[in-house]
């Protein structure tokens, strides 16, 4: 019984929690832009990629200086603030050069979506040109908090439980950022102004809210979210421009499932997508083996769909939500 729970925790719950946290951060970035600037920002995945690239260069620089006082935590955590600053700069420059023009021309949202696809391609090309298409590893420090072997010895169980330090970093940083984001949106003056602007732009302008300030603070939030989620994903898995490009799909699925424009929805959507991607492709044979008497255990793997179809899961959820409940679980704006 306990063994079954451990297997499930090791292969489903913990990976899905950390993956879900990062998807939630990504979806928050997408949803914020959608709420405030009113377009679906396809460039978000590659913004994360460029942010991570900055973090990697910073990490290498810090490593070459021999700065390692935060061991056993990875040096890259120190690099995140620099990367976030760089990303803020990048997004503000892009906004000034690209998006502002279309905003002032009062372009319809679909135009902005296409514009963001252009930005996405440019950022993608940029990261491929600067750091290259290969995988980059920049993790250092202690890899495990609990390793499978140690856990088995300590608990005397048949199954091991491994908790990677990066998984904990992912969950902790996501929860911290989310908490701060809600505090910001609910309690601070700028946050309230942002929500007002999102609810009704004209009314907000009439009450004297400066639109440029709202736009700027929105991009700052998005940049920080992108830098943290991108870097931590790269730490946990591996950095490769193409993988970040692919991340766009589950991130959008998460944002749409939760309801575009709803921060709570984005977070729940992130976890929902992560748990369904991992849960539906997981083979439950070993869990069943611990729960059922041996003669009842089936020969098959008890796997709903093959892992090859992992990305199809997010697609299917995306399509189902758009068909059945276009506003998402939390009644965001219909897209």
């Amino acid at each position, binding site marked *: 019984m306990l063994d079954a729970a451990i297997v499930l925790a090791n292969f489903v719950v913990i990976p899905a929690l950390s993956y879900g946290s990062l998807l939630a951060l990504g979806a928050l970035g997408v949803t914020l832009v959608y709420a405030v600037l009113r377009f679906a920002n396809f460039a978000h995945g590659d913004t994360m990629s460029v942010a991570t690239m900055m973090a990697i260069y910073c990490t290498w620089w810090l490593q070459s200086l021999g700065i390692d006082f935060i061991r056993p935590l990875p040096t890259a955590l120190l690099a995140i603030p620099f990367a976030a600053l760089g990303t803020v700069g990048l997004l503000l420059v892009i906004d000034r050069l690209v998006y502002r023009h279309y905003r002032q021309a009062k372009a319809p949202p679909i135009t902005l979506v296409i514009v963001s696809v252009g930005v996405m391609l440019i950022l993608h090309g940029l990261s491929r040109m600067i750091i290259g298409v290969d995988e980059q590893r920049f993790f250092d420090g202690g890899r495990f908090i609990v390793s499978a072997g140690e856990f*088995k010895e300590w608990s005397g169980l048949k199954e*091991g439980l491994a908790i990677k330090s990066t998984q904990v970093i992912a969950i902790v940083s996501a929860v911290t950022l989310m908490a701060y984001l809600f505090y910001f949106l609910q309690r601070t003056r700028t946050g309230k102004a942002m929500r007002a602007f999102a609810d009704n732009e004209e009314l907000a302008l009439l009450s004297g809210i400066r639109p440029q300030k709202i736009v700027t603070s929105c991009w700052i939030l998005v940049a920080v979210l992108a830098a943290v989620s991108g870097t931590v994903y790269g730490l946990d898995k591996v950095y490769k421009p193409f993988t970040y490009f692919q991340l766009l799909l589950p991130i959008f699925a998460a944002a749409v499932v939760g309801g575009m424009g709803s921060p709570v929805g984005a977070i729940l959507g992130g976890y929902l997508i992560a748990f369904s991607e991992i849960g539906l492709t997981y083979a439950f044979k070993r869990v069943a083996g611990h729960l059922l008497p041996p003669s009842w255990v089936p020969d098959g793997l008890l796997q709903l769909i093959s892992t090859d179809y992992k990305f199809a899961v997010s697609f299917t959820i995306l399509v189902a939500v758009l068909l059945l409940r276009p506003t998402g679980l939390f009644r965001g704006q219909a897209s």
Partner: protein
Amino acid sequence: MKKFAVILFAFVVMSVSTVNSQETIKLGVIYGFTGPIESLTPAMAWGAELAVSEVSDSGALLNGASVEVVRADSTCTDSAVATAAAERLVTADKVNAIVGGDCSGVTGAILQNVARPNGIVMISPSATSPGLSVAEDDGLFFRTAPSDARQAQVMTDILLERGYPSVAVTYTNNDYGKALSDSFSTVYQAAGGKVTINTSHEDGKGDYSAEVGALAAAGGDALVVIGYLDQGGRGIIQASVDTGAFETYILPDGMIGESLIENIGDPLNGSFGQAPGSDTQGVAYLIEEGAADSIDAKAVFVGESYDAAALILLAMQAANSSKSIDIKDHIFAVANAPGEKILPGELGQALTILANGGEIDYVGASDVELIGPGEASGRYREIEIIDGEIETVRFR
């Protein structure tokens, strides 16, 4: 305008006549210098180039012809790119024969789209798919690497002798992975082993925890990773180490290399596998030469690569022609008995014997013995990873 045309014509005549006066033989070497096995190919190409420079320096080939190598990138995975690169070798660089390709899929594509239409001989050092044994080749295709049907047998023997009666198998989703995993599971199960799961993985993904979850659920005494060490194969092992899913990994030829050990580290100790390789004295010569150029000549397919280039050049001497169409029928004769045994470093001597009408039996760095449709009979090196080093346990 007329004057210009005359000058141009003169140039063309001059350049043609320079080619004719002193024969320069060109060998195309097409390996995946970028892509999933890019960490292996530089040493492989070095092997081929060593044989070429040895022959070229001896001055004994076809009355003093010089040989040069033209490299091209097969990418290992993209058949369209590989075909275009090979086409360029044949039409623009006018190579006499091709050493390569490296991975089975692109090798098959080059064979069908470039080598056969143009009548170019190609010898691959590393394409191991059993499918290539039965591919239509007009007698143009050879390989110094054995078919994976043989590797499947060797892997089965190693596993059962070491006492692993049940394994999980994951393979990279391409010609090589599918063919080796299929023939392995057939042979292994026929010998009494149990394959708990035989599933594919895609290269180039960021995260393999779902794949490893399924493999772990199926269980088994060890995990057979049929993939590439710079790609999904490494990702699978990393994810498995992270979750503690398996402790022992079986590494076929595409997975064996220093970069795997650098990336994974200690958890790899105790894993084992096999790669084509042999214990002929010939390897010593390569290792010595390699040390001078800081190349690890013990790496997989380096000896086979040397042998592939050497066989082509020796066959040219035997045929007394540098044309592919003439040399294809002499490859078997120089590779197999009867004749004087030839090791690496003795190519000059071999050329002299052939020029005098003698016969040779090329042994080379990989104990070359061609069988059936022109492939190596297959000597394998059983390796084990001990304290972060790839140690050769024995030869099979």
